[in-house]
């Protein structure tokens, strides 16, 4: 775990808003030299604070109009290992996110589909056939926004 100062946090805020900004441009906007900004970015990458990049696409315009979150309860814990479920779920191309959770479900999956009919196909052929799958709850995503979090 690394400690960030105000300048690091300011750089992080810029990169969260637009990761394509160059170290030079970020440096100029914050009154740092290009090498100084670059070194700070590099340090946050190496410490794993900047974990990567997220591409924001208009998925509906690309023909993927439906996003559904599934809460999945495993039916046969112990008999089928968690790894089997995780491996199979991760391999489904329509499944964008797989998270292991504690609570009323064991896993949370984010599934994308062309429309509700396509989602039904994915649910029946791919999700319901996953090893160990039990109860499944589906909620259709209407809107989503990401917040900067405690970077202020």
């Amino acid at each position, binding site marked *: 775990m690394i400690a960030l100062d105000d300048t690091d946090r300011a750089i992080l805020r810029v990169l969260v808003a637009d990761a394509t900004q160059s170290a030079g441009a970020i440096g100029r906007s914050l009154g740092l030299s290009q090498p100084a900004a670059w070194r700070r970015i590099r340090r946050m990458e190496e410490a794993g604070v900047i974990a990567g990049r997220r591409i924001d696409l208009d998925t509906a315009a690309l023909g993927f109009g439906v996003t559904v979150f599934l809460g999945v309860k495993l039916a046969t814990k112990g008999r089928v290992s968690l790894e089997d479920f995780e491996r199979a779920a991760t391999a489904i191309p329509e*499944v964008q*996110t797989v998270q292991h959770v504690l609570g009323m479900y064991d896993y949370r999956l984010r599934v994308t589909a062309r429309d509700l009919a396509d989602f039904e196909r994915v649910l029946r052929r791919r999700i319901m056939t996953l090893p160990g799958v039990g109860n499944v709850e589906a*909620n259709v*995503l209407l809107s989503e926004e990401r917040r900067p979090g405690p970077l202020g």
Partner: protein
Amino acid sequence: MLIDDTDRRILRHLLSEPGLATADLAERAGVTAATCWRRLERLVEGGILRGQHAVVDWRALGWAVEVSLRFTLDKTNPRAFDEFLDAARNVPEVIEIQTFLGRVDVRLNVIARDMGHYQEVYRDRILTLPHIADIESLMLVSTIKDSGSLPL
């Protein structure tokens, strides 16, 4: 905006390796760097490629707890959604807000430094949000896949 197979190929490679420089992305997608750059520009102008954002790993910054809170709202009040969402946006520990069609109305992704801190955030800033009818929580154990990939 119409997109063709070349656009799809570029997007597929961009989604699988979001940090790639344009020259490397072009090589992976089998087009020249100039073509790749032009296509990306066109996808931005057409509103398909909405942005690229750095992903912050909050655990690396010492925020060890992440909880998915699922809310059912009191819908007898017509302003319930708007007022709840406005208030949730003011909680710095909320890093994601999603609305749903289904048994769950709204989901908030909340982070905290440890369980003690989480209890404080939950009591002082979450339970005080307006129009809550019911809350369920799922505590994140681990993220196995988070790709944002699309079966393009």
